[in-house]
């Protein structure tokens, strides 16, 4: 039988761990709500942007010499690829960051197998910590980006990436991030950011007026589209992080509760055994005297 005092000490320590995990769960839950609201708040803009882009595309005739309408659409023979790896800033969130890093590694291998030279832009501290110890060149690292980010943050990064793409530094740009499906499910997503894939042109946009011209509007819409896509990636990854952290902390609290239960049981058993032993000692001592 374990020492009573030891067991009591362990129960106390597990209890304080449980208090911490419970508190972290509550914090994650409130941050999750805020980040979910931000995801939802970005939806009307996404819808309208897509509709406008589809409408404009119906009006922009492809160039006769076959060159793309905008530098961001240019498809070149791919030699160099840039991967934007998005992970959380903090841990204690289950397998979220590990999954993102593993998926990034897989994508890097796939791109290398296609004979592409790869580089990274790493967003989020956990990813930065992971990738800086490896041999892949890092173009830009932003640890702590999720502490505070707004549209302008995403836009600046997107513009930088866009410039690198149009200047020919990279021929393809990919992004890997955790998408927020629901509180219980976060899925690693990877997709190509550049060259931009265009939505299908709207079937019946009719004859709209374009001010100043469809081409001018398109050349503004496309960079905006890139910025907004990266912004959404950050919003999704942020919400996914808090959802995952909340689930992880809930699991930890539950495990702590189970451990406390079983320790309490052992404690009581040990206590009873001790009492029984003492009784036997008293009784047998009394009998010996008779």
């Amino acid at each position, binding site marked *: 039988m374990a020492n009573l005092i030891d067991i009591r000490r362990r129960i106390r320590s597990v209890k304080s761990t449980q208090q911490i995990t419970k508190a972290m769960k509550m914090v994650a839950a409130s941050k999750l709500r805020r980040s979910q609201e931000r995801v939802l708040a*970005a939806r*009307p803009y996404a819808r309208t*942007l897509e509709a406008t882009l589809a409408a404009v595309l119906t009006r922009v005739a492809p160039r006769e010499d076959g060159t793309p309408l905008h530098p961001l659409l240019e498809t070149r023979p791919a030699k160099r690829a840039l991967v934007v790896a998005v992970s959380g800033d903090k841990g204690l969130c289950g397998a979220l960051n590990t999954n993102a890093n593993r998926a990034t590694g897989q994508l890097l291998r796939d791109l290398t197998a296609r004979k592409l030279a790869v580089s990274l832009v790493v967003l989020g501290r956990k990813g930065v910590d992971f990738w800086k110890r490896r041999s892949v060149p890092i173009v830009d690292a932003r640890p702590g980006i999720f502490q505070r980010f707004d549209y302008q943050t995403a836009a600046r990064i997107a513009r930088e990436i866009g410039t690198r793409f149009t200047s020919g530094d990279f021929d393809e740009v990919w992004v890997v991030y955790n998408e927020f499906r629901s509180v219980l499910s976060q899925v690693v997503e990877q997709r190509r950011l550049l060259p931009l894939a265009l939505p299908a042109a709207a079937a019946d946009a009719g004859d709209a007026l374009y*001010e*100043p011209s469809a081409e*001018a509007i398109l050349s503004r819409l496309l960079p905006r589209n890139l910025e907004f896509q990266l912004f959404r990636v950050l919003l999704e990854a942020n919400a996914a992080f808090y959802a995952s952290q909340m689930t992880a902390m809930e699991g930890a609290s539950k495990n702590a509760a189970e451990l406390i239960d079983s320790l309490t049981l052992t404690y009581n058993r040990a206590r009873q055994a001790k009492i029984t032993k003492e009784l036997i000692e008293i009784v047998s001592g009394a009998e010996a005297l008779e």
Partner: protein
Amino acid sequence: MPLTLTVVTPERSVVEGVPAESVTLPGEGGELGILPGHAALVALLGVGIVAWTSGGRRGSVAVRGGFVQVADDAVRVLADHAVPRDAVDVAAARVEKAAAEARRLTVSGSEELDDANAEAAFADARLAAAAAPEKA
């Protein structure tokens, strides 16, 4: 049938499907007036005020950059920045305006100058939106 006005930014919706009898927008090349039955239109926005009237009341939102799409009497504004009249921080806008105007005198590149100009104009637009009368 009245117009339906929506103003959204990447961060949030500022105006959500408000019915309006008329809307004026700061187009990049000059002000655009939209009345019900307007032809489908897509235009670039400059800096200024999106103003609308509905039932004898006026609403206004200061915007900077973006697009507007008009189709089937729905006016959808995709603004880079948008501040509705009630949310204008007059003191902050004054400070920003002064800062932008001071910066305008010292910047070198034309891009920076455009930026400073736009910032000053946006601060102006916010002040104007805050001062706009609520009655039509």
